[in-house]
C-alpha cells in the first residue's frame, strides 16, 4: 500500500505518544542490560521531531522523514539516535521514488542493519523489524504478533550494543530497542488502519 503523508504524520504522532507514555518503562528495560536511558533518549528525540514538524510542515513524505531523521539524529543521544535516524533517512530517500510502504520499510531496515551491523538473533531492534516486515507485507501483522516479536528477544544473548558487554547475563531480558520498535509498528498499524 502507498503511505499517504497524513498517515505517516499520524504514525509519528502515535509513536511519539507511546514513547512519552512508556519512557520510564523503556529505560527500566535498558537498566539490567544497558545504561538506563533508552526511554528518555527516545522521548527527547520524539519531542524534537514534534517541534521540528510544528515549526515547518513538511511538503511531502520525503520531507517528513528527513525532518524526523535529523531530529532523532541530533537529539536522541544514544545508539537509537543514529539507528532510528538512519531508518528515517533511508525512508526519506526511498520516498523520492515510491510511497509504497513495504518498500520504504525495507529501505529503513537495510539502513538500520548497515548502520549498526546487527543481524536477526543479535538481540536488537533488528529482531523485531525482521519478524514484522514479512507479516506486514502479507497483510497479516497484528499487535499480538508484534508483542511476540518483542518478547522473542528475551532469551537471546546480545551481540550488539551495550547489552553485548553483559554476555550471558543479557539473557532473560527484553531488548529496549526492540520494545520501542514494537511501539513503532503498533503505531503504524493504527495509523494505516
Amino acid at each position: 500500500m502507498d503511505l499517504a503523508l497524513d498517515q505517516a504524520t499520524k504514525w509519528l504522532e502515535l509513536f511519539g505518544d507511546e514513547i512519552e507514555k512508556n519512557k520510564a518503562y523503556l529505560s527500566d528495560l535498558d537498566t539490567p542490560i544497558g545504561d538506563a536511558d533508552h526511554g528518555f533518549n527516545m522521548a527527547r528525540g520524539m519531542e524534537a521531531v514534534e517541534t521540528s514538524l510544528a515549526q515547518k510542515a513538511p511538503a511531502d513524505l520525503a520531507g517528513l522523514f528527513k525532518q524526523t531523521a535529523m531530529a532523532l539524529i541530533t537529539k536522541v543521544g544514544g545508539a537509537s539516535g543514529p539507528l532510528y535516524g538512519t531508518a528515517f533517512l533511508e525512508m526519506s530517500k526511498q520516498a523520492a521514488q515510491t510511497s509504497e510502504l513495504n518498500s520504504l520499510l525495507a529501505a529503513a531496515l537495510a539502513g538500520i542493519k548497515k548502520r549498526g551491523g546487527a543481524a536477526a538473533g543479535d538481540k536488537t531492534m533488528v529482531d523485531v523489524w525482521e519478524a514484522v516486515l514479512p507479516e506486514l507485507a502479507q497483510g497479516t501483522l497484528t499487535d499480538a504478533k508484534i508483542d511476540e516479536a518483542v518478547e522473542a528477544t528475551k532469551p537471546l544473548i546480545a551481540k550488539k550494543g551495550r547489552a553485548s558487554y553483559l554476555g550471558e547475563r543479557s539473557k532473560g531480558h527484553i531488548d529496549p530497542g526492540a520494545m520501542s520498535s514494537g511501539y513503532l509498528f503498533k503505531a503504524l498499524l493504527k495509523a494505516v488502519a
Partner: protein
Amino acid sequence: MNYGIVIVSHVPELAQGLPKLLQQVAKDVPITAAGGTDDDEIGTSVTKIMTAFADNPADELLTFYDLGSAKMNLELASEMSDKPIHLYDTALVESAYSAAALLEAGVKLPEIEAQLAPLKIK
C-alpha cells in the same frame, strides 16, 4: 597528505583529557575531540563530531571512539563530511596514543594501520 586525529567519547572529560596525553608525544599532529551530547551528558553528538572534523586543520582524519554508538555517529558524521575519514575499531586510548606517536615520527598510514591492527577489539 597531512593527517590529524579525532577522539570521540561519550564523556566530555575524556575527550578533553586524552588529547593532552597524545599531544605530549605528537606536538605537531592536529588533534580535536568530541565528547558527550550537545548538553554535555554521557553520550555522543553528530554535531560535536562534525565540528571536530571541521576544526581539525588536517586534510585527512584518523578517528577513534569508545563505545559502539560513538562509532555510528562517527560514520554518520563522516558521510556528511568532505574530508577522508578513517575509523578504527581499536582500543581507544592505546591506539590513539600509538597513532599520535607514529604520525609525529612521520610514519605512513599503511604502516600505522599495521601497528594498530592488533589493537582491534571492537
